[in-house]
């Protein structure tokens, strides 16, 4: 089983930090959680911050990256081009809703699932019905 890092890329530092706190409750200590959120005190994303966080992930971890919108993706792609090839091969940008997708990934990672399945669960969060149908 590969060790997993979840990296949250958001325009808002509060959102990124808050989501990491929330994920910490669900993922347990064995999942590495971090964010590259905000542009200092401003709203925005910062490719150099993303690069730094990628470099800080434990060196044999598979890294799953969740992003909020628009330029968060562009900055993530930019950052991935500028880091070492070793990091590139371990990093996966996940096409999933930020909160629900990251939660699905955290729970799946804690359960020790393989990385492909964790990504699959995160992607499926797109279609998750949040309000159960009444019986």
């Amino acid at each position, binding site marked *: 089983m590969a060790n997993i890092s979840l990296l949250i890329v958001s325009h808002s530092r509060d959102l990124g930090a808050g989501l990491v706190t929330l994920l910490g409750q669900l993922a347990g200590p064995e999942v590495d959680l971090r964010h590259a959120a905000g542009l200092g005190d401003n709203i*925005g994303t910062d*490719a*150099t911050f993303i690069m730094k966080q990628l470099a800080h992930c434990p060196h044999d971890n598979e890294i799953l990256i969740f992003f909020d919108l628009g330029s968060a993706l*562009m900055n993530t792609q930019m950052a991935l081009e500028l880091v070492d090839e070793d990091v590139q091969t371990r990093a996966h940008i996940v096409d999933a809703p930020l909160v629900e997708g990251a939660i699905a990934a955290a729970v799946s990672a804690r359960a020790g699932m393989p990385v492909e399945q964790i990504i699959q669960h995160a992607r499926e969060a797109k279609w998750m019905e949040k309000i159960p149908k009444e019986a």
Partner: protein
Amino acid sequence: MLTTSAFVAFIQAYTNRLDELQPLLDQLDNQIGDGDHGTNMTRGFHAANERLTSTPTDDLGALSQTVAMTLLSSVGGASGPLYATVFLRFSAQWKGQSQVDAKEITEAIVQARDGLVVRGKAHVGEKTMIDVWSPAAQTLQENPTVSGLLKAATVAAEAAVGTRELVAGKGRAAYLGERSRGTCDPGSVSSAVFFEEFANVIVGGVEKTPWPTLVS
């Protein structure tokens, strides 16, 4: 001919123009995006300008790299990685050189255009900065001389004004569909100003387009 001191002068001149045009760029972006293009660009290029003056070097590649990395960490929106891509392509093209001629400038502009297409995944006609970079790069390719640079600046300005009639296919403006028509793309305007100041630093005597009366 572009020297390192001309490059630094270009960044300075472009920053000054962004200062003047910040309200206009924000206003355009407010109409079809999230309203911060002028603010973001001004913040980014001020930071780049400061970094350049504090780290002198005679390598155009290193200077371009410094601008790119500074923009990445200070712009915040999509224009950060897009303009950073431009300067990273310049950096790759001009590595180790203290001055480049019109041919090498042309090659760098063409590379930058290609980089923007890859980064933004946009095509001509989608109301993005590609609508300016593409015809400007082509103009230079057809005439890789200083007079080609002047022509590219004119073509860039016309193309930026022309984005008014386009419907956005990328970015936040795409959500507006037909309602994005009627406003010039702010990234195209900042790109046209880029070509204007670039040509002015290298050739001189370029007339400043009166953007506020032209596009607002």
